[in-house]
């Protein structure tokens, strides 16, 4: 079973993402912000990190940078979920080492569709 780390400071979004992923048969670990995510990431192996961008403590891009510094996460797909889709935003994501981005709001089916492209 593939394991996904789902990071969002919003409980409703986190539940939605988590429920969607679980019903599709993924194993999900939730984290409430970038710091929490980083702590949890270092305690387990994940096949994918799905992170919100705008969060307290450590944002999605900051989390991506920190994870990429770690050999364990050098090749792990990291998708940043963001309501902001400007080029600056994408560039920052790219520079941080994110695998891709997904614009919020999205529907659950779309999320799974995108995930299928990165987890194989």
């Amino acid at each position, binding site marked *: 079973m593939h394991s996904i780390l789902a990071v969002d400071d919003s409980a*409703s979004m986190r539940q939605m993402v988590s429920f969607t992923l679980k019903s*599709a048969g993924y194993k999900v670990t939730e984290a*409430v912000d970038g710091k929490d995510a980083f702590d949890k990431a270092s305690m387990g192996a994940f096949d994918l990190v799905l992170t919100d961008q705008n969060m307290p403590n450590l944002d999605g891009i900051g989390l991506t940078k920190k994870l990429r510094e*770690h050999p364990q996460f050098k090749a792990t797909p990291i998708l940043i979920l963001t*309501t902001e889709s400007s080029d600056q935003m994408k*560039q920052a994501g790219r520079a941080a080492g994110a695998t891709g*981005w997904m614009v919020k*709001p999205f529907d659950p089916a779309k999320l799974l569709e995108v995930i299928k492209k*990165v987890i*194989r």
Partner: protein
Amino acid sequence: MGEMSTEGANASAGIDLSQFYQVFFEEAGENLDRMEQQLLAIDVAAADDEELNAIFRCAHSIKGGAATFGFADVAELTHQMETLLDKLRRHELEPTPAMVDVLLASGDALRSQLGRHQGAGGEVIDTTDLLVNIRAFVAGGSAVAAAAPSPAPAASTAAAPAMAVEADVPVALNGDRILELVLGPLDRPELAVSIVELFKEIEGLGSIEAIDGGMPQDGLRRFKLTTSSSDADLLDLFGFHVAREQVALRPFAGERVAPGYGFHAGAPGSPITEEDKGYGFFDEAPGAPGSPPDASAVATANAAAAALTAKPAAAKADAKAPAATLEAASIRVSVEKVDQLINLMGELVITQAMLAQNSASLDPVLYQSLVSGLTALDRNTRDLQEAVMSIRMIPMQTVFSRFPRMLRDLASKLGKKVELVTVGEATELDKSLVEKITDPLTHLVRNSCDHGIELPAERLAKGKSEVGTITLAASHQGGSIVIEVKDDGKGLSREKLIKKARERGLSAPDTMSDAEVWGLIFEPGFSTAEVVTDVSGRGVGMDVVKKNITALGGTVEIDSAEGYGMRVAVRLPLTLAIMDGMSVGVGEEVYILPLSSVVESFQIGEDSVKTIGGNGRVVEVRDEYMPVLELERLFSVPRFDLGRSSGIMVVIEAEGGRVALMVDELLGQQQVVVKNLEANYRKVQDISGATIMGDGRVALILDVGSLVRRSRH
């Protein structure tokens, strides 16, 4: 990475989003509260980045959820707020009080909108004015904020047409959509020119202009389109000249908008058409689809995973992590379930007391294991009770948080400057009490602002700071919580109060203690309007405040110094369900006194009680005379032994007064489960409730406030 494909992934489509609505509503409510608090706290002249960021995040978070769960009106308003807040946090605009006002008003509108979505009903909320105002603020800063045409993403290789398009687009003044058209990679650059010409040839289609200065970047040409046509029509049109996969449309990036979907550009050479997007992958980014599997990276990752797992300490060091985890680990249960638990707990406490009483006479040597078992039961019951009660406890913060906003509005209406200081927000109180104390506290705070704090000029003239301070403080004292409302305003005037009382025909001798004088304002209908302040037309109703607090088993005390301010202290039991009581015997009867009101007890000699004025009796305690109430007479307790009472006095204190109760014996202190007498029987004067004793008998709980009042008359 995984070795198997995700077969289950398609089973997703039918997820019912409504199951997350409740969580969203609660979360949005919390975010609104937080946003309001932070808006109120912000110093417009010197707003710090972290504050602005935090406010932005609240709006952002609500918007994200609202858009996801389909509450378009909420999403629209929060989107505008977010746009404004974003400019503020980027210092493209300077915050002004007017902005804070419109953001606060928007918060109120959002609450109403959310309320409607939750089925609370109400009229459709018209947010037009708010939206117009916010947009005006945003536009006001547009000279600074005019978004530069976004640079093309700097691809790591020239042959990397990275992404991407979303729809949901900025809108021009005439309603046309403003799009960014990305063409390429084109094998013949002149095709772009053909497309521009084609677009211009069709009348009414809109305008097109190159935004890349005519030079391709990353092999891509970029144009700005202003058009009323749909994406599909445009794509069909461009299809005359270039392949469908070489065309991408996205919202014009000069403006930030809520995006809906987008395109994913494929790898060069094997373009993949994505019909429905809103995401993208960075080429050559780790894990991106289409990037060659990086075997060495995977190997490294696995090795590193092992290494990391061996060092779990890295994760434990952070102190903030537990708080975060805590949030994820909490559950919501209905209040009824908690109440039922508390009820059962009460029964258990009674049963335990009963066992303790019945076993008291057992020989501890003979029944050693039974007695030690009962001791353990006693301890466990107490712990359990504490744990159960703590479920219902919520911090005073929930009450205090409503005041900054209220005071701000009130102060500006009155032309006063008031600062609110809160102390002890973390102090916990039973949920049912929190709900009931909110109104009286609101009343007190409003009073302080309205009638305590002076106008700025008046304050300056008195040598005070222009800004008045109202302090709300909560703290635990013994088994009670004490909530203070303090202000540094004009305070109460002893002379005026006494004068007013006499005019109203109340007995107000000059010898009254200050506490008694202050207590006058609690007299029903005792309008202090002309007395204490020159502000007219108030109709305060302090008597109502007092009545409500007394009904909760609480007391109110006033302290004041004329010219310096006033302090109202509300003392409440932590919970209404259980209290510490002192049981006293009168004849065959047992009565319970709230332990918190018991001051002292002593035995008196036969001559210590003196009769004055025919009926009244007083006892001399340390050179002071105190009214005496004989419970035996008061409750007409039948007495069979005819012996004289043993003359034990218990001094109780309530409502700023003291009275000595004459009882036969002191039986002990214990926790009692309070049963409502009115609900089970009827209201009885001087009695606040009843409880079941360890031996199964019912004992009445005395209403000390009522006893003290009785002794005054």
